[in-house]
């Protein structure tokens, strides 16, 4: 689901991430990861986790198209400075209740054998949970650099997903 809360945060992030790094400069040993959205309804219907590198407006529109299918009256995707930044969408996959949440474990993306490494944690339901199907995700902005891929790793090492950066 991409709704007003998503759009507001996305718009804020598009401002805050601008100027995080010069375009295409070699990445430092670590760089700032800017949370854009942490939500429960991101539209993924498979149970498997997935990471997606979003490098341009067209790709963002595709993601937006998928997410907005659950919201009546959703607004169009905001503008993002893709010259300087890329977006990384990390999706946990479909879960059976509202008890699952993803959180960014560190606001730094460290370099790991040429790839950027982002770490996150996953909350799981403890007791009774709302019986609504969810698809939690994290959407973060990272400065462009010369890393060849991005990997997202859960803090318990249970989930590791990787994508190439064109």
């Amino acid at each position, binding site marked *: *689901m991409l*709704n*007003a*809360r*998503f759009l*507001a*945060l996305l718009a*804020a992030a598009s401002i805050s991430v601008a100027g995080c790094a010069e375009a295409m400069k070699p990445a430092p040993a670590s760089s700032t990861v800017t*949370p854009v*959205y*942490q*939500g*429960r*309804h991101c*539209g993924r*219907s*498979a*149970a*498997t986790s997935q990471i997606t590198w979003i490098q341009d407006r*067209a790709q963002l*529109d*595709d993601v937006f198209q998928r997410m907005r*299918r*659950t*919201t*009546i*009256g959703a607004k169009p995707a905001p503008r993002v400075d893709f010259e300087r930044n890329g977006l990384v969408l990390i999706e946990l996959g*479909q879960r*059976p*209740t*509202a*008890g699952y*949440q*993803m*959180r960014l474990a560190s606001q730094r993306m460290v370099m790991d054998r040429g790839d950027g490494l982002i770490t996150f944690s996953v*909350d799981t*339901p*403890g*007791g*009774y*949970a*709302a*019986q*609504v*199907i*969810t698809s939690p995700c994290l959407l973060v902005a990272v400065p462009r650099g010369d890393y060849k891929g991005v990997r997202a790793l859960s803090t318990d090492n249970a989930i590791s997903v990787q994508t190439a950066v064109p």
Partner: protein
Amino acid sequence: MIRLDNSFHCAFATALVLTVAACSSGGGGDGGGGGGDSTSTIASLRGVLTAPQSTDVDGDVNEVLAPLLPNQTFAAAQSLPNPVTVGGFLNRPFTGAPLGRSTTSGDERDLYRVTATLNQVVRLTIADEQIGAVTNDLELYLLDGSCTDADPDCATACAKNPGGTLVLESSTQNGNAAEQITVPASGTYFVEVCVAAGASNYLLTLGQSLSAAGGFDPGADFVPGEVIVRFRSDTETAAGGDRSIMAASVGLQAKAGGAGRTMLLDIGEGEQRRLAMQTLGITEQTLTRVARATGAGAADERDTLAVVEALRARPDVLHADPNYYRYPLAVPSDNSYPLQWHYPLINLPQAWDIETGQTNPVTVAVIDTGVLLNHPDLQGKLTNNGYDFIRFTSISNDGDGIDPDPDDPGDGGGNVQSSFHGTHVAGTVGARSNDGDAPSVAGVTWAGMIMPLRVLGVGGGTSYDIMQAVAYAAGQPNDAPGNPGQDQGAARADVINLSLGGGGFSASEEAAYLSARNDRDVIVVAAAGNDGTSNISYPAGYNGVVSVSALRLNKTLAPYSQFGSTVDVAAPGGDLSQDANGDGFGDGVASTSGAENGNGIDFIYVFENGTSMAAPHVAGVAALMRSVNPALTPSDFDGHLMNGALTEDLAPAGRDDNFGYGMIDAAKAVVAAGGVLPPSLAANPGSLNFGTVNSSATLDVQLFGNAALVAPVSASTNEGGAWLSLLPPAGGNTMPGVYQVLVDRSGLGEGVYSGTITLDSDANDISVPVIMQVSNAPVVGNSGHQFVLLLDAETLAPVAQVDLGPSNGQYAFEFSDVSPGDYVILSGSDNDSDLNICDAGESCGGYPDLDSLQTITVADSDLVGLDFLVSYDLVVGNQALAERIGREGFRRRDTAGKSVD
């Protein structure tokens, strides 16, 4: 579960593992191995796939292993049975999967030859209409049966030479996943499907019109002599926008409307009507045929329908219809109500005709995450005695423990967005309804009140807090300071909705629910759970609690829904992975919600899916029943449910583990509670198809209110002859009941025959269309070239694959050298050759059926009889199933067949 015996059940699920009886050994051939204990003996698995009789496959799909039977010319057109569903594929050159047969050359048209009857519908479903940003488009044409390849009048737009006079009908909408044509007269035709852009699987169906769309509903009343017409824009331009000129061009008179919109035309009387008929080419034979086909008795009605039919056949007319009378049906005016498919599905409009919750005050307690008290679509619908029962500040997210503020502060915690789940559930129970144009949705009960009780916070909630809320709602002692819920009389709730759940049976918890039910007469409804298994979720699994499973739009069990012995009833829970109704949104349940915006909360409307969404439909219906009859007890509710008085029974008949006693039917429920339905006549099914083999079927005729049949139920045939007959129930053919409908093919030549069963009552009339085929050659199904996959049951990784074509509608398969272990079997076609079977538009099946795949345990013996059906899913392929078991399960080997992806 509403069973009330004293034997507390075992709270543990029984794994759905089918151990197939071992049979004699044997086998050999292609096989896999792996997925089990590789040190043990190996075995063979054998079975037979069956294609439904009315299925066929395009002769030149993209899959190179499938037989090639080109169908790109009229001379080579592929003959189809009737009715039929055909899976096919088309592509422009250099589009589609890279390894396909026609990827480079393109396969831009498929031609089929059919024999069809008046008002049958040809429907094209474009499976891949939108893939990301890429739009693929196919078009549909109906051409005269005399067409040849050399005849320029048979050229369609796909042949870059549109306008052939033998192109009788076309459906070429852009951006639509479905195209549809109504057969204008009985006869033999060519059906052409061609590609306008890109590449796509498709499903082509030829069947009966199941609604008035395209054809006529002879049972519907309309204004004799009036027709509603929309001319094509070029016609309007040519007439200078003058409605009189446009009307005169078809021999009619303009009464209302104008250019750029629909017009109301009059067919005139006397000489004027005669001239109109002449202008439109309507002959006496036409009128006779129309009268016979539609059952139109009066000349005015017959002439009107004949004019509509003639107008529909004209190239200058976009659409034409009778001017139907519409009668009031209680449909709310909320502007998002058209997106709430889940209400008509359970006959709520009919129920609202009787009861919208206004007769007696009823309160439904929504025990959940709390409710956004300021949501505009809940104003006036919330009681002022809601409560927050979350004790732990670590999860309450509002800085305190129990308090009388049930407002939902969110359950996200930190930067994570909140679900506002209780607001969504509350909106389904009873959002402000029928409140005009403002952004809004409708609720099940328009006048019933909602008591918001908060028990779920960050990470969920505890059974103790939930028990306090249940007691509060029931007016029993609880932990709220001063026990404000205790014995509050009218302040207590009549119905409790619990769209929550978890594992672990608790005797004390069950006792609390039973006490609320038995001691305080509260109907308790709960979500069955979303694990997609038979595991028991609580509180739905407790005695005395109505457990609700979730349905998709097509009344099948949602893939995530819990099932099993504790399920009592099913209701719409939605499936966001599909958009079967083409409204542009996933087929979830639309309701109220919220969105954090950094400075506060936006009040919004969203689609969600889950058994959480199904339960409030039932709770809302229970509230309507209690509004009709405040004395209705939970025992009464359960009794009606078990007697089938509240539900539409979904197959199999009687109670089953998927749907309990069936899908909740709001109209039946309010009647069961004492409401009186307006007089009406109903017949189910709405149409009958006997195919080439069947010779009998049943027709259930029902009368509601004080309606009565005013004429004998009768059967007639459109082509003449007496091949269709009826056996009425006891009491004769003027009585409601189950009629046997019989077909006698003796003496009939090959072809397609149609007829009508006519039912007239003093309330409304119904015509049930009947179709039947006579074929000297046996008609067998063909679900296309099959790839049968053996999957490891635990990892769902493919272990082995066989591929094969049909023989007399069946596919005998065998996996040899299979190691002991647990497996599941799937099969499907890959018409687009993308190496995934079971895509939308492709056939699919699983053992024993797709909706309840079972694990096959292989020990040390061969297994046989692993038979199942492979068919097309007319909704959206089997996308939902693919998502449920993981996409890997549908990946097949490439054509080299040496490795499994």
